[in-house]
């Protein structure tokens, strides 16, 4: 295996995935065998791809290959460079965990519906994501990109008998497709300025790299690509599909979609912004930064108000993509002023967050899947107390919550810290306006971080803690072993990535070096692997291992001190303030937990609260039934989507009048067309 080059390994992985997809229908009569076989092979393929990606980044070289298929003058070009390698690693790493998880998860469908479709498109989806990262010409990129979109679309509407699922999948595919066409146009624009457009060779990325595009057109190309990719990444206001599609997909698929599919869009933005186009206009970065900030804040606020577990996680993905884009935007701004070192710090923060988000969001979605598996419930209002029943899932999910809330020593904190560090370096920019504005962005990121913590306390507190909130006590059973292993691996990597950031940064450093010609590892690990010092030790430093060990030691010491003595611990009922028994209905739930948020940030949403008093039929003078109804809607939906949809249907009605039914009118059209054309010729 070691004799193979990274690209060969990656291709092997993709071929295994495609072959699995092709074999799957043959096995469709034996569903259990199909599940075990295909998910094990896809796990193996992912593992191979992890090695490939890792080796590509470590090797730092560029490998390319031309496949003999595609258009005759435009065969499929493949290229494996450190940037692709890094993203391949992310995709494959989470893919590996999720594949293992799926062995357990998908078996729950057996007997209810055929899983052949799920298996086929799962493999195609994985292969599509990897191909996107490897492709090196516009055509192949688009083919892979849409392969990814279509296969994930079929995965989203896997449980197709519910209209809601179909609607979600439809919305997803629509927005994805519009985004894809924008990307395509952007490539078309770049190819148009490249050499050899007429004989198809302008479509290769290498031709685009070498082309000189006028500044104005370059901006058009960049923003088309940015919005195209943003539609896939779920950047506000193009995020509408995300909270619809992720919840209805099977949880293993949501984990992949949220954890890694969104990253391919980030990859695209980085590829176009740093590699294909060479601009020195800081406004590009500024726009990316602003969209990132808006997504981060809005995403987490929306997440806070959700009661559906997976929907909440989906919104939180919007937030995290926002943070990644903030870093990318900062890097672009730094780059435009020629500050390579700072740019690479910001880019590093972004890339690190990509990796982290893949891990903890994958973990959380897998956890959500385990909860769903156990309770058949997505609404958090009907859960609670699962910590007592799900002995494995509960702590693993907690790890995910801690990571995503940016708490040391887990991984989320590292990237958040790096982000703040790059923000804190913005005063070095030679533009006074940016000096004043960028810190405000930092404040918004801080707000996002704090709200994320609040949000995930709600998630964990309402789902796992307290008493069961549902109407009847359902039988809750812990997830099978493959699911636990998948989550365990993700949790372990969350911790590892949090504790050993210096290694990761040293590994990744080749990427900013190739893109920006500046590297930070010389300063970042200057004080040894224990200390992360991105710029200089005097400037800022962080040592995750010491914090981790420190807290553990103190914890252990205190615990041992107290447990050497024999003080009795007694269980007692809750204090009920002297009234009657406290019932489960009196607990704080998701809606009440987020009430302060609704009060403070309510103006951003479309909130309708209604309270109805129902009277008791025996004692009419007492109003003892109070019905509270809350509806929170996305205001952006009404602002950005509703008008489009309405206008389309309005236009459709208008256009429909053309087909009036009277043949004379049709003849008149023909006649008038003739007259008009004759007049204008």
């Amino acid at each position, binding site marked *: 295996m070691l004799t193979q080059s990274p690209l060969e390994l990656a291709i092997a992985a993709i071929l295994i995935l495609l072959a699995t997809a092709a074999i799957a229908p043959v096995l469709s009569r034996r569903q259990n065998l199909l599940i075990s076989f295909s998910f094990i092979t896809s796990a193996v393929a992912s593992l191979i791809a992890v090695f490939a990606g890792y080796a590509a980044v470590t090797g730092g070289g560029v490998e390319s290959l031309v496949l003999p298929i595609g258009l005759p003058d435009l065969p499929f070009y493949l290229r494996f460079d450190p940037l692709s390698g890094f993203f391949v690693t992310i995709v494959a790493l989470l893919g590996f965990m999720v594949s293992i998880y799926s062995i357990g998860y998908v078996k729950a469908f057996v007997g209810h519906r055929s899983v052949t479709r799920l298996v086929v498109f799962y493999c195609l989806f994985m292969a599509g994501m990897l191909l996107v990262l490897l492709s090196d010409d516009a055509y192949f990129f688009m083919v892979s990109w849409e392969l990814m979109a279509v296969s994930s679309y079929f995965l989203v509407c896997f449980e197709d008998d519910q209209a809601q699922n179909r609607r979600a999948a439809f919305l997803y595919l629509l927005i994805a497709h519009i985004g894809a066409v924008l990307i395509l146009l952007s490539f078309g624009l770049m190819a148009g300025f490249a050499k050899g457009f007429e004989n198809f060779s302008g479509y290769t990325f290498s031709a685009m790299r070498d082309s000189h595009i006028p500044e104005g057109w370059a901006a058009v190309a960049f923003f088309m690509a940015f919005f195209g990719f943003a539609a896939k990444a779920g950047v506000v206001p193009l995020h509408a599909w995300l909270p619809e599609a992720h919840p209805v997909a099977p949880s293993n698929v949501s984990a992949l979609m949220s954890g890694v599919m969104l990253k391919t869009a980030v990859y695209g933005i980085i590829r176009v912004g740093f590699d294909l186009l060479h601009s020195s206009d800081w406004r590009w970065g500024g726009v990316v930064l602003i969209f990132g900030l808006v997504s981060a804040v809005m995403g987490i606020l929306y997440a806070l108000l959700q009661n559906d577990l997976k929907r909440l996680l989906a919104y939180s993905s919007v937030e995290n993509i926002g943070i990644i884009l903030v870093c990318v935007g900062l890097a672009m701004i730094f780059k435009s002023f020629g500050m390579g070192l700072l740019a690479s710090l910001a880019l590093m923060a972004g890339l690190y967050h990509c990796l982290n988000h893949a891990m903890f969001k994958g973990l959380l979605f897998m956890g959500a899947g385990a909860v769903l598996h156990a309770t058949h419930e997505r609404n958090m209002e009907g859960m609670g107390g699962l910590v007592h029943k799900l002995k494995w899932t509960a702590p693993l999910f907690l790890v995910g919550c801690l990571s995503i809330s940016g708490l040391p020593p887990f991984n989320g904190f590292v990237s958040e810290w790096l982000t703040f560090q790059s923000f804190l370096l913005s005063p070095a920019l030679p533009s006074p306006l940016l000096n004043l504005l960028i810190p405000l962005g930092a404040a918004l990121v801080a707000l996002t971080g704090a709200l994320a913590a609040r949000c995930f306390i709600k998630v964990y507190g309402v789902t796992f803690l307290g008493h069961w909130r549902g109407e009847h006590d359902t039988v809750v059973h812990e997830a099978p072993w493959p699911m636990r292993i998948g989550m365990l691996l993700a949790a372990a990597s969350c911790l590892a990535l949090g504790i050993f950031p210096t290694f990761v940064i040293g590994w990744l450093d080749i990427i900013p070096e190739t893109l920006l010609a500046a590297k930070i590892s010389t300063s970042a690990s200057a004080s040894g692997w224990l200390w992360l010092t991105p710029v200089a030790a005097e400037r800022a430093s962080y040592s995750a291992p010491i914090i981790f060990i420190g807290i553990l030691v103190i914890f252990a010491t205190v615990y041992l001190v107290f447990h050497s003595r024999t003080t009795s611990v007694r269980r007692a009922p809750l204090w009920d303030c002297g009234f009657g028994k406290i019932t489960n209905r009196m607990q704080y739930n998701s809606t009440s937990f987020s009430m302060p948020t609704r009060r403070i940030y309510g103006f951003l949403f479309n909130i309708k609260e209604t309270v109805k008093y129902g009277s008791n039929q025996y004692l009419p003078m007492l109003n003892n039934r109070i019905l509270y109804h809350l509806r929170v809607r996305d205001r952006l939906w009404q602002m950005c989507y509703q008008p489009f949809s309405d206008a389309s249907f309005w236009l459709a*009605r208008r*256009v*429909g*009048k*053309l*087909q*009036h*039914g*009277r*043949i*004379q009118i049709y*003849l*008149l059209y*023909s*006649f008038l067309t003739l*007259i008009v054309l*004759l007049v204008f010729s």
Partner: protein
Amino acid sequence: MNVSFAAQLNSVLAALILLTAFGLLAQRRIYGLLHIFALQGFFLSVSTAVVGYSAGLHHLYISALLTLTLKVIVLPYILYVLIHRLRIHKEVEEVVNIPTTMLIGIALVIYSYHLTAPIRELSDFITRSTLAVALATVMLGLLMMIIRKKAVTQIIGFLALENGLFFAATSATYGMPLVVELGVALDILIAAFIFGIFFFQIRTTFDTLDLKAMEKLKEEE
């Protein structure tokens, strides 16, 4: 018959064809329409023969003969039989606002003249001035199809339009190559059979040949 006389004769025939085209626009009765249409075909045929004679192109005689057979005898006969068999001869069509239609028609003639003016300069044929009339006949036929409401009248409008095309072919170019002429004639013949079949189909399915019955296929409001 010298060339200039032939040209004059051709102009007169062109004027007559134009007149019949207007006549078709104005006529309400079905039999009346049929007669005018046959007359138009006759003029066309004569005009073709005159051109053939004056230019010395003998294949145009075949064209003239074809026209005569098809447009003056066969098609009006088929239509006559159909009208008779389907008992629609009593239906008198309401043609709205004839004066306006006439005005539009005159505007179309002027417009056709305007359009063909640059082309006239190119041609050295005796018939060159009649191209405008041919185009006008085509457009008037189209106009007729637009304003009429019955299937039969629409077909007559369609055939009048084809007459205009024929006239264009003879007047502008001294006729198309024979193979084309024959093919076109064959097509028209087939078309005639098809609309014959159609009249029966429409009659049996809708009980009327009024086009109002056939406005069901449309986009819903």
